[in-house]
């Protein structure tokens, strides 16, 4: 299924700059969470640093826009610019991963039906924003991308699932280029729901916003690549990682670094055991959430971004493989095998 990664773009607690996530990981200082009770749950939250929706996108047509959509539209603009601006929009697909769209907008809108003088006195301009595919639609509209337009409600594993989807779209000839990633926003609603949903043993990470986007194409030599993705239900992370490596044709000894997010859903020890069992103790270990917080559906995207950014400054990475695994609180696991550029 090999896919080339032609460009990346992101906006997180580390801001929008290329390399920002890797610099934060290398420095090892976690970003300061914002505590604003009762709006924020105990671990605090992380905003996309410096992201001002109106300043980035103007005020025309953005008054009702949620921040997750704003981040996605903005990251897609940066992605297209990073790709040189010549991506044929009619042959490009958009895939946006999410947990459940803009939960804050959904719940505010619905709550109004209980509190307004009449149940239908909701804000009509917010209605389309309550629908999960608003972000993907806005990315297409504002950048003129007319290929398949997909919203993938994959939760923690969304970006790994999006890579599988992207490979199928390209192989089936439905798109030549796929603009693919995930976005999540800070709202008090989402932050509290995420906090309450955490299993016992989950790390005390701030609930974070962030968006990460990848420009994927059919395999082109010399570029960073997604070699394989595997999924497994029932929490079978080690099996999932083994399958992904087999599909990629990569031996465990070729793996330079391994990222994981198990800590976010209380699976840190299980993940460590799985990585050790499959990969041994050789690979450099990366936990992107220590730099960007718990970005929910964007988690795997930030793990891939962190690996690519770290590889760019680590001579040991050149031409080797990197893996990233993910496991959610429902037992769904995914593994992605990447090839670092030489």
């Amino acid at each position, binding site marked *: 299924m090999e896919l080339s990664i032609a460009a990346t773009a992101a906006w997180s607690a580390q801001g929008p700059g290329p390399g920002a996530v890797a610099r934060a990981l290398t420095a090892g200082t976690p970003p300061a969470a914002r505590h604003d009770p009762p709006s924020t749950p105990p671990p605090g939250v992380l905003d996309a640093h410096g992201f001002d929706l109106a300043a980035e996108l103007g005020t025309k047509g953005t008054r009702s826009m949620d921040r997750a959509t704003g981040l996605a539209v903005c990251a897609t603009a940066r992605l297209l610019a990073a790709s040189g601006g010549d991506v044929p929009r009619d042959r490009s697909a958009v895939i946006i991963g999410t947990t459940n769209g803009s939960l804050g907008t959904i719940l505010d809108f619905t709550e109004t039906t209980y509190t307004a003088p009449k*149940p239908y006195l909701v804000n009509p301009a917010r209605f389309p924003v*309550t*629908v999960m595919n*608003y972000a993907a*639609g806005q990315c297409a509209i504002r950048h003129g991308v*007319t290929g398949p337009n997909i919203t993938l409600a994959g*939760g923690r594993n969304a970006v790994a699932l999006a890579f599988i989807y992207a490979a199928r779209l390209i192989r089936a000839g439905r798109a030549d280029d796929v603009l693919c990633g995930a976005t999540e926003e800070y709202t008090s609603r989402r932050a509290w729901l995420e906090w309450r949903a955490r299993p016992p043993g989950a790390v005390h990470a701030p609930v974070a916003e962030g968006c990460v986007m990848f420009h994927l194409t059919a395999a082109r030599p010399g570029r960073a690549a997604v070699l394989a993705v595997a999924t497994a*239900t029932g929490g079978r992370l080690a099996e999932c990682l083994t399958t992904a490596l087999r599909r990629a044709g990569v031996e465990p000894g070729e793996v330079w670094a391994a990222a994981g997010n198990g800590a976010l859903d209380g699976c840190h020890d299980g993940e460590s055991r799985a990585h050790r069992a499959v990969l041994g103790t050789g690979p450099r270990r990366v936990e992107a959430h220590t730099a960007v917080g718990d970005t929910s559906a964007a988690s795997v995207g930030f793990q891939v971004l962190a690996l690519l950014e770290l590889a760019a400054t680590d001579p040991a990475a050149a031409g080797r493989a990197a893996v990233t695994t993910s496991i959610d609180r429902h037992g*769904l696991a995914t593994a992605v095998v990447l090839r670092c550029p030489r």
Partner: protein
Amino acid sequence: MSGARRVVVTGAGPVTCIGVGRADFARNVLAGTSGQRPVTSFDTTGFAHADACELSGFDPAAWCGGETPGRAAAFAVAAARLALADARLDPAALARAHVPVVVGTCDGEAAELDALAAASAAGEAVGTAAARRYAPIRLPLTVAAALGLREAEPVTIGTACAAGNYAIGYAFDAVRAGDAEVALCGGAEAVSRRMFSGFYRVGTIASDACRPFDAGRSGILTGEGAGMLVLESLGHALARGAPIHAEVIGFGANCDARHPVAPDSDGLAACIRLAHADAGIGPGQVDLISAHGTGTPVNDVTEVAAIRRVFGASPPPVISIKSMIGHAMGAASAIAAIAAVDSIGAQFIPPTINHIATDPACAIDCVPNTGRPARIGVVQNNGLAFGGNNAVLLLRRPEEASWN
């Protein structure tokens, strides 16, 4: 696509307000039964009119062992069980097979989200279980767990009202390329106070009945349910002597990239052409169009304009089953695909009911009120969505095909 496998529909599981299971649904959809009734699943105090197409009497516990999931997931489980039974496939036989389980949905566990908002309005705290239950990724995960599909590839596609067709398209590509021999795909949706209120506010809930293509149409009725299909490689289906109901011959998806909610006839026409090209057919080979056909003034005019652009002055019959089952959002095009399979099997066109007088602005033969026999070789199934999304599926009668 070189080396592509042919893909067939061997099972279908409709869970709708006019029938649960193939025989029940086929009888009613071909007969033109209306599923319209007053809303009971949420309090409608304050709305001047509040009919919908709800599943009354659906018992999640009858379909889902153990902990009862959300309403949409329960619909999906029921539909998946029915689809596998229709395909004469024992789930146990798929326990070790790589099976994409692809569920399209507009609003995921919409009733769970309604409950979260109601709790918030009442100042009640939310527990851990409620904070986990709404996650839409649980739709395919619940199906996989209920059926023991250990090697499922779970996918939730949230492309609003085109999600059902998108899910079928995903499974089609997976099987066509040889990634899987069998896939389960379709859509699931539960009615919600949110969607009802939103559509009511923007003036698109029908005041009396859903009348697609009618001069007096006033909008949609919200609906719910699920439709899951078993897609299978032709080789796998033939080897096990499976019933073959239809062949999936093409799919197309694109985005108008123009307006957040309004459809666009240029974009839809382009999407129809993509699907035809994918199937290697021309418009003259399509015998029936199952329209998105919501019954809003703008959808029906735009959709018929797009159809005319591709098909010329004399398109095939264009029907809307939303006249019977309302708009089941993310499940709508999946249920419509099952109706298309039933039309092919019966060689009979389902009617567009509640029809009084066709709107000259979207003049087509919508087979008003009474269905009729017809030779149906290929059915085109349209799905449109907010965000300018279009997804078109093409199904062919198995007798039209040569399996060699």
